[in-house]
């Protein structure tokens, strides 16, 4: 088989899975939004001009058509799905702007905060785990391992407010709110990095404990390697596999879970956009945001899947197994055990 063929065989099913996840999310969201009681068009008008608006039925029908909310459920579904494929997410009923515009406006800010939070969270975790693994005293190791769960336990608005009062009001180093200046990203990112890093750390430290108890780490230490070399060359890479899975999940969480932090720091962002859209029953914006989040989520999962073989050689496409030698010709040669390898491996493969 050619190299390209092998790669295609490996990647194609995962890309299909990606497309399926996005499509399924879209369909479920579409149905859910339609099942909700109340008329989104009326709700949108109420937001624009107050509750006691009287509406001309013809005007209402025109608005419906404009929003793609006319016709049967199936017609709506098909026409919106068609538009989606061309990159058109529709128009916001509440603001009259296109959904693509609205999302594109807030994505860079959200991306900066989420990306920085992920980097800070993961790096801090790795450093903490390294220290916890090489610390010479047991009490220090235990302490370092016990710290991160606090990151999950303390809610984001509390950490956010503490950070603001210290770094903005007392020290005056960083802006407390807004999204104009570049350094306004830092405090929200740190706030988000707490839960993100804590979740990652817990998965990571478990994987490290497991690697440290393994036979190959014993071999490495029996070889005379120091703690740092054992951690860097033997523990880290083996502990990475389960941890990368959790990074995929965290990216999904970051794509949609930033509303609280954006509110605390009064920033424009995906989270706040969706909150205001839900309050205004702005159907097309809700759908649009969910699609974008689903794409990010599925993309993260896809990348995680594709990264496995890079980290773990056992998951790389194998060469065809050598054919077991004919049973009739037996000879004891120093390599006789190679024959057992050919016959045992397939059994394991079959068990899966």
């Amino acid at each position, binding site marked *: *088989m050619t190299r390209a063929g*092998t*790669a295609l*065989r*490996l990647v194609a099913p995962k890309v299909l899975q990606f497309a399926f996840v996005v499509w399924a999310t879209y369909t479920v969201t579409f149905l859910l939004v339609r099942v909700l009681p109340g008329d989104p068009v009326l709700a949108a008008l109420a937001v624009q001009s107050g509750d006691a608006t009287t509406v001309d039925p013809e005007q209402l029908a025109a608005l419906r058509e404009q929003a793609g909310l006319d016709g049967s459920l199936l017609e709506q579904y098909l026409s919106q799905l068609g538009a989606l494929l061309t990159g058109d997410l529709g128009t916001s009923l509440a603001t009259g702007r296109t959904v693509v515009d609205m999302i594109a406006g807030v994505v860079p800010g959200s991306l900066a905060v989420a990306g920085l939070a992920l980097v800070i969270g993961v790096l801090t975790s790795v450093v903490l785990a390294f220290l916890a693994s090489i610390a010479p005293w047991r009490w220090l190791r235990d302490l370092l391992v016990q710290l991160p769960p606090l990151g999950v336990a303390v809610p984001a608005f509390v950490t956010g407010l503490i950070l603001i009062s210290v770094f903005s009001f007392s020290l005056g180093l960083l802006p407390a709110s807004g999204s104009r200046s570049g350094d306004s990203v830092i405090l929200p990112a740190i706030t988000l990095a707490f839960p993100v890093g804590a979740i990652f750390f817990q998965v990571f430290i478990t994987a490290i404990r497991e690697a440290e*108890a*393994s*036979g*190959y780490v*014993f*071999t*490495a*230490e*029996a*070889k*005379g*390697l*120091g703690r740092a*070399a054992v951690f860097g*060359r*033997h523990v880290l*890479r*083996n502990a990475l596999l389960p941890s990368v899975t959790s990074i995929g999940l965290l990216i999904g969480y970051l794509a949609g879970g930033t509303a609280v932090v954006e509110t605390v720091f009064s920033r424009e962002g995906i989270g706040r956009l969706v909150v205001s859209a839900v309050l205004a029953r702005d159907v097309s914006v809700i759908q649009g945001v969910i699609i974008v989040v689903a794409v990010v989520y599925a993309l993260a999962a896809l990348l995680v899947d594709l990264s496995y*073989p890079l*980290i*773990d*050689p*056992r*998951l*790389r*496409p*194998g060469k*065809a*197994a050598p054919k*077991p030698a004919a*049973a009739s010709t*037996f000879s*004891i040669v*120093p*390599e*006789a*055990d*190679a*024959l*057992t*390898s*050919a*016959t*045992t491996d*397939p*059994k394991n*493969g*079959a068990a*899966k």
Partner: protein
Amino acid sequence: MNDNILEVSDLQVRYRVGRRRIEAVRGIDLAVPRGGIVALVGESGSGKSSVSQALIRRLAGNGEIAAGRVVFDGQDLLKLPMKRMRAIRGGSIGFVPQDPNSSLNPTLRIGEQLVEGLRLHLKLGREEATERAVRILGDVGLSHPEARARQYPHELSGGMKQRVLIGMAWSCEPQLVIADEPTSALDVTVQRLVLDQMQQLAADRGTAVLMVTHDLGVAADRAEQVVVMRHGQVVDAGPTAAVLHAPTHEYTRDLVAAAPGLNSVRLTASAAPVATEASHPILEIRELRKTFTLRRPGAAPEPFTAVDGVSLAVPAGRTVALVGESGSGKTTTARMAARIETPDSGSVLLDGQDVTTLRGEALRQLRRDVQVVYQNPFGSLDPRMSVAQIIAEPLRAFGLGGRREQLTEAKRLLDAVQLAEGLADRRPAELSGGQRQRVAIARALALSPKLLVLDEPVSALDVSVQQQVLQLLVDLQAERGVGYLFITHDFGVVRQIADEVVVMRQGRVVEQGPAERLLSAPEHEYTRALLEAVPGTAAR
């Protein structure tokens, strides 16, 4: 200065488990002469592995060395700062670990793992170290060492991995190599080659070896001196010939008597066997065949024939041993015989009835006649059930008798497998390995089956316990006239229990026949090789 490279005195090791302290090693003395091979022998729980790990000061996290001296080449290792200890680990003392399959880092190439030690201790440059690593792989008998150096551990078989680890232990010209059960995870033929390799290296380089093993046969074949441990203490020590061939100490004598490799005769039943019509086979399998499909990422599915036209018959009240190395297809054959797996072609006859295609309720009813005992007595019993519940479960499943009768029957079965009635209320976790396997046998007998399929029933047990369980099986067979299909890789066990032997290799039967004939005058080359590889045979 004397001629001992290693002298251990009053070594004590203990583990903290919760608030308790467990004394694993209670003050042992031990000496290894320069260039000599010493075997440290003991059953599980004797503390022998703790000793080997304590010598390089690398115990599990909750373990500590409580007292003692470990004098290596004139200096007490227990007093060295960690930094100098690391220079000795891998540099002057090599270590061959127990399980080759988990002892190499799966994410690093074989060559890189060897290079690490060479650069650290011999201060070689990268290129020089890489060259040396390739040479070492060649030295330990791997073909195409250059290609092997670039492979990952999962691409090598267990035996090849153990060779790599042996090469690693010897890579920096150590004065002492500690080998902790170096071949327990390997097939006998591979085990022999690997041990030969170690002995050769030790002789060529003049390295002293401390070999930790549970296998008296291995010790008898390879060591000049033997130290026997029990409950954390040395009970017997001296030259191999004196300790193993003319044992004076009671415990050593029991061990030697129980070791299948050293001493193998057919066990006889304690009572006269019930009369069975030996002519009629209780189980007959004909031309069984099973193919699995292998799926690998990025490769087309590939068929793999695990069992290829196997036929055999088990007479009532007799034992047929199905012998083979890992991957020979013996377990798959047994699973098809018990109708846990469905064959692709061929037929399974139980008591003359074709049961090959039974399904649903009919297949369930078949379980009354065919029961299975598995290798691992720790995994095959539900940890939340009491012993009585476990044994009575088959009776409950088939609605035989009321609750009280089932309990009475469970107690009767406990008695039959020589367990005290008081154990009925215990959970499996409170039992030893041997006791658990007895419970599993009692459960299998609850329905009075005609056939027991025993899949490596004693290979997880210590030799002395193994001996008792085998004797029990022989007695039960004589009492009840049940037929055994006995799967094993161990020819010592075959000798003790089999009436007929079937040798399998790569899915096919290589040779079959009466045990006496096959064991004394094997016809096939492979059978002969398997028999010769049994540890302890060199000594006889």
